[in-house]
C-alpha cells in the first residue's frame, strides 16, 4: 500500500518495527489510513497489535520506521502532545472524578476557559447520547454508558485519530452487539478516523471500512471485510476469519490456478489457488460451511465440481447460524455445513444419508506453511 499523496492519510506507518531484546513484536509494518475511515487491526492475542497501537499512541518507541499523522512524523512527539487519543481496554475512566470531570480533563489540560469546558462537555455528552449525566460518578453508570463516556472523553479533544484497544471486551454479548453498531454510528457522526484493535473478527468485520489481519508481528492481508472473507490472501486469513472446513493434501494436477488435490484422507477435491502452485505441492484446502450445498439425492448437486455423500452425524441448532456435521468418505471425516434457512432440511436427523457438494471456485488452496 504505497500512498500516492501523503497528506491524504490521517495516519501512516512506514516500515514500523519494534523488537524487545531478541523478540520482534512488530515487523516492518506499512500502513496508510485515509481520513475519516474506520480501520481495524484483527489478530490473535500476542500478534503484536497492542504494541502497534501503543506505538501510535506514543507509549512505545519504535525500534525503526516512522509514524506520520496528517503527513507529519510524530516519532519525537510525546503521548500528551500527539493529536491522537486512546480508548483503553478497561476504559481507564478516572474513578475519583465525575463524568463531566473525566470528559473535561483533556480540555483543562489545554487551558480551555472553564465555561467553554462546561459547554463542550455537555455537547459531547449529548452527542454520545448521555445528556445531563455529567454530575454522575463513574461507579454510578452502566457498562455501555462508560464506553460512551470514554469515547466522549477522547472525541471532545477533536483528535486526528482515535485509537481503540478492544474496548468492548469486557461487555456481555448483548451489549457488545449493540455497542458495535453504536460505535460505527459514532464514528460516522464525528467523522474521526478510528483505529480499532481486536481479536474478535465479528467486531472487526461489522464496523470497519478496512481490516488488517495481523499475525506474528506482520500484516497478512489488508482489505475490506468482504475481501478477507471471500478472497483470503493467506492460509492464516482463511483459517482465522470466519469458519472453514480444512484439508491437507497434495496437488495432483494444476492448470493456471485450477487444481485437483488429493487429501490425506484420500478424497479428491477440485479447487483454485495461485498460479504458481504446481503438481506435487502440499496445500491446505479451505471450504466455508455456507459454500456447501445439501441435497437429498445425487441429482441435486450434479452441477457442483465437488460432490460427496455421507451420513448426518449431528445437527447443531443455533437459529440462523445452525449447522450440520456430516461424516463422509473412507476416513469418516466430519464436514461442517451451514443449514440452509429455507426450511427444506429442518427435519434432518442423525444417521440420515445426505448428498452435498460445492464449487471449485469456492475452494481455496494455499501452499502449506
Amino acid at each position, binding site marked *: 500500500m504505497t500512498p500516492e499523496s501523503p497528506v491524504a492519510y490521517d495516519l501512516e506507518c512506514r516500515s514500523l518495527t519494534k523488537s524487545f531484546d531478541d523478540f520482534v513484536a512488530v515487523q516492518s509494518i506499512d500502513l496508510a489510513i485515509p481520513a475519516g475511515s474506520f480501520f481495524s487491526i484483527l489478530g490473535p492475542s500476542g500478534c503484536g497489535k497492542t504494541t502497534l497501537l501503543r506505538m501510535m499512541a506514543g507509549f512505545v518507541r519504535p525500534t525503526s520506521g516512522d509514524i506520520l499523522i496528517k503527513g507529519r512524523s510524530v516519532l519525537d512527539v510525546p*503521548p*500528551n502532545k500527539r493529536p491522537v487519543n486512546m480508548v483503553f481496554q478497561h476504559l481507564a475512566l478516572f474513578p*475519583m472524578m465525575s463524568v463531566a470531570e473525566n470528559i473535561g480533563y483533556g480540555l483543562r489540560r489545554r487551558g480551555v476557559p472553564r465555561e467553554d469546558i462546561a459547554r463542550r462537555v455537555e455537547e459531547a455528552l449529548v452527542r454520545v447520547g448521555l445528556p445531563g449525566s455529567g454530575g454522575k460518578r463513574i461507579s454510578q453508570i452502566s457498562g455501555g454508558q462508560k464506553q460512551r463516556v470514554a469515547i466522549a*472523553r477522547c472525541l471532545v479533544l477533536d483528535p486526528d485519530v482515535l485509537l481503540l484497544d478492544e474496548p468492548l471486551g469486557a461487555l456481555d454479548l448483548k451489549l457488545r452487539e449493540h455497542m458495535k453498531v453504536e460505535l460505527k454510528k459514532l464514528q460516522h457522526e464525528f467523522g474521526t478516523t478510528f483505529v480499532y484493535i481486536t481479536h474478535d473478527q465479528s467486531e472487526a468485520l461489522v464496523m470497519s471500512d478496512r481490516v488488517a489481519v495481523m499475525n506474528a508481528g506482520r500484516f497478512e492481508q489488508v482489505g475490506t471485510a468482504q475481501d478477507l472473507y471471500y478472497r483470503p490472501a493467506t492460509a492464516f486469513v482463511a483459517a482465522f476469519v470466519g469458519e472453514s472446513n480444512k484439508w491437507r493434501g497434495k496437488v495432483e494436477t494444476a492448470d493456471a490456478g485450477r487444481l485437483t488435490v488429493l487429501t490425506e484422507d484420500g478424497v479428491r477435491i477440485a479447487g483454485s489457488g495461485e498460479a504458481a502452485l504446481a503438481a506435487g505441492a502440499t496445500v491446505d484446502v479451505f471450504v466455508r460451511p455456507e459454500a456447501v450445498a445439501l441435497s437429498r439425492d445425487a441429482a441435486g448437486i450434479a452441477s457442483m465440481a465437488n460432490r460427496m455423500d455421507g451420513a448426518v452425524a449431528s445437527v447443531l441448532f443455533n437459529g440462523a447460524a445452525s449447522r450440520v456435521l456430516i461424516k463422509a468418505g473412507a476416513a469418516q471425516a466430519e464436514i461442517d455445513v451451514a443449514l440452509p434457512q429455507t426450511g427444506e432440511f429442518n427435519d434432518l436427523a442423525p444417521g440420515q444419508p445426505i448428498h452435498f457438494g460445492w464449487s471449485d471456485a469456492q475452494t481455496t488452496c494455499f501452499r502449506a506453511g
Partner: protein
Amino acid sequence: MSRRLGFYLLLAPLVVWLGALLIIPHIELLLTSLQVKVKPRVYEFGFGNYAAFFTEPLYWNTFARTALMSIAATALTLIVGFPISYYIAKLARGRSRAILFVLCLLPFWVSELVRTFGWMILLRETGVVSNTLQWLGLSSGPIEFLYNDAAIMVGLVYTSMLFMVVPLVTTLESLDDSYIEAGYDLGGNGFAVMREIVIPHAMPGIVTGCIVVFMLSLGNYLTPILLGGKDSLWFTEQIYAQFITRFNWEQGSAFGFLLLVLSSLIVWAGLKLTGQTLGQTVGRG
C-alpha cells in the same frame, strides 16, 4: 446454638485483646489522672492534673512543639517516601524492586536504640560526617550535627519511612497503569497526572501512612532524647519524667490521656482538612 458459641469463641481473643490491653489500662489511666495529691498517701478526686497542663506554659508548649515537629516529620516522610514508593510500585521491576523494599525494611532489623546510636555515630562532632567533611577540606574544624531539631527530624523520618512506604506502595500498586497512560494520552504532563490522578488515587494510602507516622513520631521517646540532646523537649519525655523521676503518676497519667485525646483531635482535624474519613482510609489503605 453451637454456631453462636463458635462465634463467641472466635470473638473472645479480640475482646480480651481490646479489653485487657487497651480499655482496662486506659480506664486505669483515667482514674489515676483524676487523683490529685493533697499530702503523702492522701489523694482527692479532681481535675488539678489536667489544669496543670493548661496553666503551666512549659507543658503546653512542649506538647505544641512535639505536635508541630511530628507534623513536620510526617510531611517530610511523605515527601521523601512518595517518590520512593512510586518508584517501587510503578517503575522498578523484579529484583531491583525487591531490593528497594528490603532497603526500606533494613533499619527495622536492628533495635531502635541501635538505629539511633548509628545516627549518633554519624552525626556527632567527632563522627563520620564531620570527619569526612574535614578530610575533604570542606570544613576547617569539627562540626556538631547532633543535638538539634534537624537531627531529631532525620531520626524520625528514618524511623518512620517504612510505615509510609508500605501503605503508599500498596495503594499505588492498585492504580492500573492505564490510568496514568490515559492521563498523559489526554494531554496531561507529569505534574498534572500526578496531581489529578496519582495523588487522588493514593490518598487513602497517604492518609494511612501519615496517621501512622504522626502517631509514631508523637509517641517516640528514644530518638528525640538521644538525637535532640539538651533541646529535645519531647512530650513523651515529660510523661516519663512525671512517672519515673518525679514519682508523680497522677500527673503522668493526665499527660498520657491528654496525649491520646489531643493526638486524636489532630488526626481528626487532618482527616477533615483532606476530606477523608477514617473508614474509607483504613478500608482501602
